[in-house]
């Protein structure tokens, strides 16, 4: 299946979906998959930098 066909199919699913703006939900619906554990990799990486930068935040995180 080409990329454009997949995108077209997803768009069709999204129109039928109760939450059409939810792209993760639309993908999950299209694939018939179990709930997707979405990980924002960029944010997780930025968070690790934040904890490195600020000792207090690092300490609180370690004790959480």
């Amino acid at each position, binding site marked *: 299946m080409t990329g454009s066909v997949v995108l077209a199919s997803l768009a069709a699913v999204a129109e039928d979906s109760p939450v059409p703006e939810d792209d993760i939900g639309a993908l999950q619906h299209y694939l018939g998959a179990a709930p997707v554990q979405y990980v924002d990799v960029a*944010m997780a990486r930025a968070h690790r930098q934040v904890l490195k930068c600020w000792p*207090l935040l690092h300490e*609180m995180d370690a004790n959480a």
Partner: protein
Amino acid sequence: MKLILFSGVRGGVGTTSMVAMLADALCGFGQRVLAADLNGADMLRLHFNVPYDDPHGWLAAPSPQQCLQEVFQVTPGLCLAPCGARGRLPDGDAVVAAAAEPFWLAAMDVLATDFDWLVLDCPVPRRSALDQLRARSTYDICVAWPDAAAHVLLMQQGLVAASRLLINGLNPAHQLSADVALDWRCRWDDRVLPVWVHEDEGLHESLAHKTPVTRYRRDAAASHAARSLALWCMAQQEPKI
């Protein structure tokens, strides 16, 4: 009638200003709103041009069923229930803490036909539990300024069950402010409200002018945030925690 509870992670984080601007923004969208002050300091009235020494307030109402006797109409659709002079006495905080929950639980039944929203400005959770009101609330919002002290307090106390975090005073140009906000987003995910209120001098000036920022400077960033938050509140079917 939907109930919104606002409380700060500590004092001085702008909780009362958030109540005033959200109440006014909801009214601007045609909602019928009653904003009430559950703090002995009784500051909310000052955001709505009620005289500093005015004695009226819900603490003076003969009963919860007669609370409308002590309510000010700010503008059509927006009413205010100050705490009242008794709350400003030296032992006012204790008086208010003891009276607030039973009073407003009883009053809600009476008010339901007159208002779409009841917005309560509550003390910090450590000073007053208000558990039954929290259980009845549609949204329980904790206001926090993204700094190191607020971070420690939030990590110590945790977010009260089912409450959401409203970030106020964000300054993306300040590294710590942006980083603390990012940490909260990572930690509490969708319990952090999608509307962030940026640091805005207009908020401070609006209190000095005795009016909500949404009226004092309609185009201020905080006013836009207030309208976004009001729309978000109106758009939610049921809170998802």
